[in-house]
């Protein structure tokens, strides 16, 4: 005879231990189950893939360290894709802590010790070329190569700060910042996060306000992502895509159907889908952290579903649905 009450009141630390085992062990037994991209993610990928050096996108690092595990892989994936297509990328942040995460995300893409990354050329470093009049991407790269610079083995290309990439960083009252950027990006951000004058940057000269931007991808763990829709899409028709945590993702399906957002990456799964598309499209050599987490995610879901089922079996088999209260355990 099973003592259902004892079973239901099992010390919760045993449940914690089971979760820990299920989240650790699968990392060592790679199943490599395929991840099939959804239309919601594919539409973001296709839009970025259709852009080139004459376009520009924003990536909003609009989350805090708490949701880093879900949002960071999305940001890294989109940044990688855009840089590989030579699409200029402006990076902003809704919170001060988000700016730090943006710097870390960018640093991971610019770490040339890892193959498949990009070589970052800071603004000050190519100053002589600027002075000599090389500001167009192609001419600058040619001149840069002619000056004896060569790509390290495994690197995918150069990223010139101010031409391909600008980290604008954090500003408070971000809704107003988006509104203000509808008129002028440089008024809101006179300098980038490193103090460089934004007005001198070729990518800003070609894209002065949000009307001249082709997409904003906001990565968020809060409703901050809506700033881009409410003040960007509504005011200047800015195309916006979401990369949000799974907890929030279900809330934003109405905005996909209404056409207010282009698409959505929901949680780690959304990031994994983007990584798969990117890898299939030849933009990366391997899939990233999000895809690697998917096997673990599968097994953890199965365990939680088992918990729900077992909990219910015990509850009904023990006849607790007829009682008013069940003694609680620790």
């Amino acid at each position, binding site marked *: 005879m099973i003592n259902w009450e004892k079973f239901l009141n099992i010390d919760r*630390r045993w449940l*914690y231990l089971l*979760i820990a085992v299920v*989240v*650790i062990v699968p*990392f*060592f037994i790679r199943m490599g189950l395929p991840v099939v991209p959804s239309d919601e993610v594919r539409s973001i990928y296709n839009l970025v893939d259709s852009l080139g050096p004459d376009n520009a996108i924003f990536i909003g690092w609009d989350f805090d360290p*708490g*949701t*880093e*595990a*879900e949002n*960071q892989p999305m940001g890294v994936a989109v940044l990688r894709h855009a840089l590989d297509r030579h699409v200029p990328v402006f990076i902003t942040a809704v919170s*001060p*802590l988000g*700016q*730090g995460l943006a710097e870390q995300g960018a640093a991971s893409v610019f770490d040339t010790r890892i193959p498949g990354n990009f070589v970052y050329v800071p603004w000050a470093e190519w100053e002589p070329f600027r002075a000599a009049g090389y500001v167009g991407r192609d001419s600058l790269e040619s001149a840069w190569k002619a000056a004896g610079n060569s790509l390290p083995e495994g690197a995918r290309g150069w990223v010139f700060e101010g031409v391909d990439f600008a980290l604008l*960083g*954090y*500003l*408070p*009252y971000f*809704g*107003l910042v988006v*509104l203000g950027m509808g008129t002028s990006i440089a008024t809101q951000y*006179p*300098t980038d*996060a490193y*103090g460089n004058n934004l007005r001198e940057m070729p990518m800003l000269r070609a894209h002065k306000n949000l009307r001249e931007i082709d997409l904003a991808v906001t990565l968020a763990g809060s409703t901050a992502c*809506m700033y881009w*829709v*409410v*003040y960007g*899409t*509504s*005011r200047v028709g800015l195309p916006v895509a979401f990369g949000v*945590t*799974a*907890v929030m*993702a*279900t*809330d934003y399906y*109405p905005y996909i*159907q*209404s*056409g*207010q957002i282009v698409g959505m990456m*929901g*949680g*780690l*799964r959304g990031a994994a889908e983007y990584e798969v598309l990117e890898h299939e499209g030849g933009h990366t050599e391997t899939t990233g*952290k999000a895809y*690697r*987490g998917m096997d*673990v*995610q599968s097994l*953890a*879901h199965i365990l*939680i579903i088992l918990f729900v089922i077992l909990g219910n079996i015990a509850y009904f088999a023990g006849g607790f649905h007829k009682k008013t209260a069940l003694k609680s355990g620790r």
Partner: protein
Amino acid sequence: MYETIGLWVAAILTLAVFSFLYKENPLYRFAEHVVVGSSLGYTIVITYQRVLYPRLVEPVFLHGESLVLIVPAMLGLLYVTRFFPRIAWLSRYPMAFLLGMGMGMAFPYDMQAYILRQIQATLIPLYTPGAPWYNTLGAVVIVLGTLAGLIYFFFSKPHKGPFFGFGSKVGIWIIMIGFGATFGFTVMGRISLLIGRVQFLLSDWLGLLH
């Protein structure tokens, strides 16, 4: 050296926080307090670098231009009066400026994004020639489900009769399906966050994953 020490500190702090799962302890409490101070300390630095320096210190005090910016700076400084009870009421002025104008500015945009576009997107044809049956069913669910959900939240009329009674019943079913989806995604999100930390410990710290 910097990287190695950093990795170890990060790993020890990660384990310190996890130790709470076994039982509350001083190490966890320490980490909990440090994070509050460091988050605000970091915010001070970034706010100065990103806002006060480029928007106030540099143009006004270093270049002597845009002197008009002293006006918002003075207004902002009024926040400090909050610490002096006799003149604390002055801190209402910057709040009034931000809140009143902010609300006025937000109103039309909120109306457009949250209401008008959403209503417009609900007024869709129920049947599109050539669409698969499940999309047709989906369109019906969107139109009637939204209406039913709204009826459920409409408390000014008793939920009785064929329209309000039946409508609110359908509404609560639809809302429960919505909550179920959110619950499923919440589980997914929580597990993902844990995966992130485990990846850090196994890969970055211990170097066990390749």
